[in-house]
């Protein structure tokens, strides 16, 4: 995913953050336009981070990445822009990114 993103000339900067707290702090400070949140199995924390970020900035585009089909409905509840299933499909990934950027 990092490689795909770095190949896209519209993406200026990519950060990878593992700790949820520092993630929220960074988002508050840097206000990214797009974020990808990896969801684990039946992942409530991941969805909650999405919710908190949305409250901070309504305009942010959140894309959840998951190997679970079941969380897609929750993703809609959060107001996610996209939901990508693992393993990632390059075409679907690019089409989503281009749509966000457009």
């Amino acid at each position, binding site marked *: 995913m990092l490689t795909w993103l770095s190949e896209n000339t519209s993406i200026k900067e990519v950060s990878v953050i593992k700790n949820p707290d520092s993630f929220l702090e960074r988002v508050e400070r840097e206000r990214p336009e797009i974020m990808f949140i990896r969801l684990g199995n039946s992942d409530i924390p991941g969805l909650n981070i999405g919710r908190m970020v949305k409250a901070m900035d309504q305009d942010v585009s959140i894309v959840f990445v998951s190997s679970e089909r079941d969380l*897609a409905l929750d993703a809609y509840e959060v*107001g996610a822009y996209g939901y990508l299933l693992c393993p990632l499909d390059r075409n679907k990934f690019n089409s989503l990114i281009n749509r966000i950027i457009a």
Partner: protein
Amino acid sequence: MLRAVLIDDERPALRGLEHLLKDYPMIEIAGMFTNPLEAIKKIAGINPQMVFLDINMPQLQGIDAASKILDLCPDTDIIFITAHDQYAIEAFELHALDYVLKPISKDRFEKTLQRVTKKNGIIRQSLEKNLAIKCFGRFQVGWAGEEPIKWRTEKTKELFAFLLHHQGQEVSRDEILDHIWPEIEVEKAVHQLHNGIYYIRKTLEEYGIERSLAGISGNYCLRLGAVALDIWLFREHITVVKNNPQIKGFEAVAELYTGEYLEGSDWPWADLEREQLSKQHSEAILSLAKAYIEKKQFDRAEEHLLKAFKRDPYEESITELLLNIYRTTGDKNKAVRHFMEYEKVLKEELGIKPQEKIQRICSAIK
């Protein structure tokens, strides 16, 4: 207006949706279909901004229907309304705007509509609250019936009023600096401007005003949504009475004009506008008084003229009309009293005497 198409093979479901949409006057239902194939035939002609789509339909599955609709109208937003939770992935792949499970709750539907209106840049008027901006008389911004905004400093208030004065237009940085901070050096003034804009944004936000209702964009352009701005209403009524000079319209003008434009402020940039609005108001009052005189409702005419005289005592036609009323009603006392007051104001403020024709009207009253 946003056009919506509703597709569900069950008629009660369609009616339910129709009912929910009644709370959203900005959405027009442009078509309702129980057969998705029928909908697909007509969809290009309607070109709706959104389609509410059921998934499980015998003629055609909703996911396939959505992709056909998107082929025909690529900019249309699809909102799935369904009893099935297992298609959300497919919905995301079609970039559907939302996916809502039946039965739909009002709260959940509100969320959907927020997404729709946000995406379409629609300004939603809050039903409970009405943001009122008062420029006639003392400048005030606030929710109707609530304590108005308290500005951090007089300069912040002036800056906001200045942007409001130019609302909808971009105002250059230099223009703002020239008018608001003419006396301090540029570097300092720029700093003040940045701070001022920040405080306005913060103040509006803390007061609970959404950016769509009143927001400042980068190039210092204040954009207003559905707010009750008294000068807008005033101008609207002025236009109305120009084409249709009815008492009702003039009364509305009189009622809106609760004082001079940005009264009590020492803001030279507002002077020209203040004069023009005052002139428009005086003209409207004269027309209103004449209309009442024609109907022989002299007391109504007198009341408006006296109020106008207080605001603008130098305007000769106000006094002339008043004296003419007193001549008609034969009210010598009132005429003399008014004439003396008029004479005094002219003498004290302007050092002149009333025109001869005014004197003649007065002396003609017996």
